[in-house]
Each structure stands twice: as structure tokens, then as C-alpha cells.
């Protein structure tokens, strides 16, 4: 049984297809070559003038885990003002900045996304994260386990355990928590916060353990490389949001000695201290460094104006930022001595100098980094803006005159301090297809996603070309998930459950001996209960596990 998509214009950067007319055949949930003459084609979609891309992949979006739930609990007004009624197919939900799990899944699918990755899964919170992701329908998902501020790792590092043991621990964590990668948040800083340090620079020592963020990043990046984890170490660096953190970020890039590293929401790490207000854009320097170092990939964490909520594991920075909470309430907490979490609602204002410049810095980064294969489109949902604003962001990147109109409406001083007006670059549909599809899939090691070649999973999004790219990308004509049509004209017509992507790196299980002792002495659960079984994810047949190969 074949389905044929005909007459469409295909953008498939993995195969270098840039807007060419191609027919696509779907068979058994996968894209195939043209079938032999006698094969029966059951359904043909005539896509004259329409644009075909692979299903979009969000590499960094907080859709699960403890902190989003705290945001949901803390912001009933966010829910009361954005109610989603149930329909015959979809269930009810609510929320704009921190939508409910179901609503998040539906909204992603209605925007043409078919996979989302939760970047901050605390190992001790992994079960909760997987449950929330199981409740997120329509899309495939996966999560990065968060290490770097947990007691066991810091003890290992402080006692100068050899790299092999650390790699074993990292591999064990990925296995036990069903993760897709490793993230480090404010390396050692979350722990340092608990010992009354209120800032931690790259070479500053955590007072208790006597290790620096540089040691932590190097050690984890080594471990990720040695274990062959496809996605490079996902780094949320030191000094997020601090003016002058530009130097820290550049130093972090140098610290990994050419090992692969992904710097996440780098917009928040690209601030200088020039100008009267001691706050300036460091986008040019960061972009230059990224262009020069092919081992570095970034996602931007673009800020867009409006009410949102910042939810981060970085309790040190969230504590520093709680004075700006809007509405005035916030949470900063420890989680099981593994790390921490902070939730601060925030409103980005276009007339505010700092917020407006943050907006401009994000866009400058997008436009100054040359290689779209190493920069991903994110707003760090919900920290910079909710993911529903991606189409608006795409329009800002693709439409220079629209961008300049927006630039004219923001804070005048910020607009003057930014070089954005002088940048002519406009993203093409091909570039967008790279940064939202091909590149994330490549970075995550998803071999059969993010492209439209034979053998790929038939996650396909089809748009009508429109001059207004915001309209175009907010309402795809068709979305296929695993070969099934799930969205037509921007509305869900079939509800499906996506799979959970995981890795099974090889490591020496001898590490469990020391872990077992540690768990008995310090942890709140036993080692056996800490690990997440496949059955828990596959529960009632709603979930599916796809094990991605390691390198």
C-alpha cells in the first residue's frame, strides 16, 4: 500500500535537494523509492505549488520534568486566560507559557513539528519527566540527563577518579534514565549555590568540592566523546544573563580543546559590558568563534516579547533574577541534592533597553553564524518565549523588511546599540529546512529522521508557500507522522502517540558497585527503583522506545 505525494517542491538538505519537484512515496510508515510498475498506489496527494519538508525537530524545549510542573502549578492565571476546549479528537487543556502536556503535543503537531527534546531531565526526576513526555501526544520525544552538579559526580571529580570511571557513571546514567544525551547546567554552580556562593566563574572553585566548571565540562565532554554519544555535550554555561559573560563563553569554547560541544541558548551568554548602561551585544564575537570552531554547535534561545515563564535548573541564576519576577512570585529549590531548579515568571518588554537588546542579540547571532548546520532555531521554550512563537521568529529571519519594522518599534537606545539594521542576510527556505530539520537530526544522531530520502521515517510537513512566512509556518497543510496523516490545514485529524528516543551506550557495569553503596547511604530511593524500565515507558502500549545507535 503506497501513498504518493506528487507535484510538490521538496526541500531536503541532507540530499542537497533545494526546492526541486520530486515525487515522494510512503510505504509502511517509511519513505521509499519509486515502487515497481505493478505496485498499487492507494492514495495520491496533489501538492501543486506546495512545499515539502521533513517533520521539524525541536532540539531544546522544556516540555517535561519537574520544573515545568512547578511553573504550571505556580501560574494558574496563565492557564485561566488560555483555555483549550476538548474536541471530538483532542482532549482539553490550557496554558500559554507553560501549556499542559496534551496541549503542548497538539500545538507542536499543528505547527508541523514531529519530534521534541526535553533538555533538562534530572536523573532523580527522570520518572516524572518520562511520564510527562508519555502524556505529550503526537510528537516523538527524548531527554538529556542533567549531570555536573550532582553529589556523586562531584565527589568523583574531587577525589580525582580516573576518566574511565566517570565515563562509566555517565553511561550508567544515560542507561538508567533512558536519556538521549548529557546536559550540564551551570557546571558545579547549582551545587555551589547551596554552599552560599552566588556566582561561579569558569575557573572559580566550588568551595566544598574544590572543582571548577572547567574541570566539569572537560570531564563530561570527554565522557560523552568516549561513550560515542551522538549528541555532543549540551552545555548551559556559567554566568547566564550576566553582562560581560561573553568572555566566559569564549573561554568555554576554548576549554574543550576541540572536542564537540553544543552551547545552548547562547543568546543569554553573549553579553558585553560596553556602553553607558554597561550592557552590550557580544553576538559578533560569539558568532566569529562559532564560525571558526567546527566542533561547536549552538542553539539561540531567542527572546520574543510578551509574558512567559523562565524555568531552569540553574538555581543560582534564577535566584539572582527573582527580583524581576512578573507577576511577583518565584520558586528556587533543591532537588534530591542532584541539582536544583528555579522558576521565575517574566515579561519581556519591547520598550525595555535590556529586553530589546536581548531580542536583537538573538537575531544577530542567527544572522552572523554562517553555517546553518550548526545553529538551531529555539526560544528555549518557555524561557525566551513559548514555542508557539516559532513561526514569528522564522518570519523575522526570512523577511528583512519585517525585521527592520520590528526593530524600529523597540527601545530606541537598544536599536541604536545593535548592528541588526546593517545585516542584510535573509534565511532561505533551504536554510530553515536545515536548521529546523536536517541539522537537529544530524546532531542528535537520528539517522532516519530530518530528511526525505529512501528509508527515512515518513515524518513529513507540507506547507503552502506564502509571502508571509509567519502564516506559512504556523499552519501547515498536511503533517504526516510515521506515514499517517495527522494534521490537515493546521488542525489535528488523527491523534497518535510518538516514540521515545533513547541510547544504550556501552560502559563497565562495575560502577554499580560503588553506586549501590552511595544509594544506600545517601539517596532517597534504592538503586533498583532509580532505574527506569523499558516497560514503564511502553506502559499500556501508548509509548514506544527507539534505541538510537551510538557512534
Amino acid at each position, binding site marked *: 500500500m503506497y501513498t504518493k505525494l506528487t507535484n510538490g517542491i521538496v526541500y531536503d538538505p541532507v540530499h542537497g535537494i533545494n526546492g526541486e519537484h520530486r515525487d515522494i512515496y510512503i510505504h509502511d510508515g517509511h519513505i521509499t523509492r519509486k515502487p515497481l510498475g505493478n505496485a498499487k498506489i492507494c492514495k495520491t496527494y496533489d501538492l501543486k505549488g506546495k512545499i515539502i519538508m521533513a517533520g521539524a525537530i525541536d532540539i531544546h524545549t522544556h516540555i517535561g520534568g519537574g520544573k515545568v510542573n512547578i511553573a504550571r502549578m505556580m*501560574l*494558574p*492565571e496563565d492557564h*485561566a486566560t488560555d483555555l483549550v476546549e476538548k474536541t471530538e479528537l483532542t482532549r482539553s487543556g490550557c496554558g500559554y507559557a507553560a501549556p499542559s502536556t496534551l496541549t503542548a503535543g497538539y500545538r507542536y503537531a499543528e505547527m508541523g513539528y514531529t519530534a521534541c527534546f526535553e533538555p533538562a531531565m534530572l536523573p532523580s526526576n527522570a520518572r516524572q519527566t518520562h511520564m510527562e513526555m508519555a502524556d505529550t501526544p503526537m510528537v516523538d520525544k527524548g531527554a538529556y540527563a542533567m549531570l555536573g552538579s550532582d553529589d556523586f559526580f562531584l565527589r568523583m571529580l574531587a577525589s580525582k577518579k580516573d576518566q574511565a570511571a566517570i565515563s562509566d557513571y555517565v553511561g550508567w546514567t544515560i542507561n538508567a534514565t533512558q536519556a538521549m544525551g548529557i546536559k550540564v547546567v551551570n557546571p558545579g554552580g547549582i551545587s555551589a549555590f547551596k554552599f552560599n556562593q552566588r556566582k561561579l566563574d569558569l575557573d572559580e572553585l566550588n568551595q566544598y568540592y574544590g572543582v571548577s566548571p572547567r574541570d566539569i565540562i572537560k570531564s563530561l565532554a570527554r565522557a560523552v566523546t568516549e561513550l560515542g554519544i551522538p549528541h555532543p555535550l549540551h552545555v548551559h554555561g556559567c554566568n547566564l544573563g550576566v553582562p560581560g559573560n561573553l568572555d566566559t563563553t569564549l573561554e568555554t569554547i576554548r576549554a574543550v580543546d576541540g572536542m564537540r560541544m553544543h552551547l545552548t541558548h547562547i543568546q543569554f551568554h553573549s553579553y558585553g559590558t560596553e556602553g553607558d548602561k554597561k550592557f552590550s551585544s557580544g553576538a559578533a564575537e560569539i558568532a566569529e568563534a562559532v564560525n571558526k570552531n567546527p566542533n561547536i554547535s549552538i542553539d539561540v534561545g531567542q527572546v520574543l516579547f510578551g509574558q512567559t515563564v523562565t524555568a531552569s535548573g540553574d538555581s543560582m541564576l534564577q535566584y539572582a533574577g527573582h527580583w524581576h519576577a512578573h*507577576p*511577583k512570585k518565584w520558586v528556587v529549590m533543591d532537588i534530591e541534592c542532584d541539582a536544583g531548579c528555579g522558576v521565575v515568571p517574566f515579561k519581556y518588554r519591547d520598550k525595555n533597553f535590556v529586553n530589546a537588546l536581548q531580542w536583537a542579540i538573538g537575531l544577530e547571532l542567527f544572522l552572523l553564524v554562517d553555517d546553518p548546520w550548526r545553529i538551531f532555531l529555539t526560544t528555549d521554550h518557555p524561557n525566551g518565549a513559548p514555542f508557539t512563537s516559532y513561526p514569528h521568529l522564522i518570519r523575522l529571519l526570512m523577511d528583512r523588511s519585517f525585521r527592520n519594522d520590528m526593530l524600529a518599534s523597540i527601545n530606541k537606545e537598544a536599536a541604536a546599540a545593535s548592528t541588526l539594521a546593517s545585516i542584510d542576510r535573509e534565511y532561505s527556505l533551504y536554510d530553515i529546512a536545515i536548521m529546523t530539520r536536517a541539522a537537529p537530526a544530524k546532531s542528535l544522531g537520528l539517522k532516519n529522521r530530518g530528511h526525505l530520502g529512501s528509508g527515512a521515517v515518513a515524518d513529513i510537513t507540507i506547507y503552502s508557500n506564502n509571502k508571509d512566512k509567519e502564516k506559512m509556518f504556523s499552519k501547515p497543510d498536511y503533517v504526516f507522522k510515521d506515514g499517517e496523516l495527522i494534521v490537515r490545514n493546521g488542525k489535528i485529524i488523527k491523534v497518535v502517540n510518538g516514540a521515545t528516543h533513547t541510547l544504550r551506550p556501552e560502559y563497565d557495569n562495575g560502577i554499580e558497585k560503588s553506586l549501590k553503596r552511595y544509594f544506600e547511604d545517601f539517596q532517597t530511593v534504592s538503586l533498583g527503583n532509580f532505574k527506569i524500565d523499558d516497560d514503564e515507558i511502553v506502559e499500556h502500549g501508548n509509548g514506544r522506545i527507539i534505541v538510537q545507535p551510538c557512534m
Partner: protein
Amino acid sequence: MSALTFTLKNQPEFTLNVASLIPENLAGKTLAKIKSLAVIYGNETVKLGTLFTVKGTDPSQIFIEKSTQKLINIGQGMTEGSITIKGDAGDYLGQGMKGGTLTVSGNVGCWAGNAMSGGRINIIGNAGDYVGAGLPGDSFGMTNGLINIKGNAGDRVGDRMRRGIIIIQGKAGNYCGSRLHAGTIIVLDKVGKLPGEGMRRGSIILAKKPELLSATFKSCGNLKMQFLRLLFTQLASIDKELALFSKYGPEAHRFSGDLARNGKGEILILQHYK
């Protein structure tokens, strides 16, 4: 012009959200148009005319007759005019109300005057919990206006209230004025346990000793407070009905608290004129 009168045809079986029946919403609408307004009944949206008979012409004076506790969100966000309810009213009476007058002849449910910022609510019967409070997640409860209850009120009167006056002529439940930011609550009969728990500023004025006062309130002794005289005179000038305070003098036993918060609030226990 006669008052616009809505009479319930039958006793509603489910909750009936009548938030749209406010003077500014009905002004300039014909009777036929008013009858075709949508109201939420249970989990359905129905036309108003199927549930109510409507007569009268003046939308600045609204009467709701044969009302029951199933009618919720009466007078939500109203800014002017008056709504008079014959019978009981349900939850969220006068939610987010900004002006005008709401009068209920019977009892009302919970969350009366929830997050109101002006105007006046008169309740002849009893009120439920959370009078003049805010919804979960709101920073503040009521931020201005006056609520006058002739009967009793439930627990947590004026929870997180910011400004305004709540007068309860009957009894009040536990945690009266809990987490009070500022504003004035007056209770003339008995009050339950732990009034003013977690209050920051503001005054809770009681005519009788509370059942239990938290240890975090400190007695300042009996004081003569001219402020009370001013307050009572002012209230009497608002409405003749509120002249009842003339029997209370300026002398009161003052407790400051909640010292577990910052101790800038006060509970005053009025002493009768001898």
C-alpha cells in the same frame, strides 16, 4: 423606565453562568437581542430566553428574580448601575467587579467579591468562604470597594485582600483576614480561630474576642483610637444602615501582628461604651 427584570422559569439543574448579565453589556440591546444572549448552562451554551422570562427596559437597573445558588458569576466585572437579586446567589458573586451596586436578598456561595476593585456588595443573608479573596495564583484579593454582609460569613474572609472594607454583621469563620496585605475587615459577632494568620498590614476590627488568637500577635493593651471614630463616622455617612457603629467607642484592645510576617497589621477588639 422600568427595571430590566429576569425571572427564572424553572429551578436550574446545573450551574448557570450569568456573567453576561451586567448593565454595560445589556445597554442598547433590545429585549429580543437580550433573550438570544448565550449563557453557559452546565456544560452547554444555551440562549438566555429559554431559561428566563425578561421584561423591563432600563438596563442600568437589573433584577434577577427567583434566583438560586446555581447562578454563578453574577455581576462579573460590572462597572456601573445596579443588580438586585431576589433569592440566593452562587459562587463568584461580583468577581472582578469595578463599580456599581450588587444586592442579594438571600445567601451567597463562596468567593463573593473575588478580586473586586470597586463598587459595593450588600448581602442580606449569609456568605460562603473566601469573601473578598483572590483566586489561587492571584497576588491579591479584593483591591477596593465595600462588602456588607448582614448574616454570617465562612472561612478566610478577605484572604490576601489589598484595600477596601468588608463588614460582617454576623459571625465569621476561621482564618478571618488570613494573609491580609492591607484593608479593613469588621466583624460584629463571634469570629473563629486564628484571625489575621499571616497578615502583613491592615486592620481586623472585632466586636468580640476571637475563639483563638495566634501566639504571633502581641497585646498592646487598651487604647483610645481616634481613627475608629473617624472610620465609624465615615461609614455612617456612606449609608444610614451603617450608623450601627455608633454604639462602639474609640477604645479597643490592640494586638499587633502577624509577627511571623512583619507585625505591621493589627487586630482591634472593640470595647463597648459603658
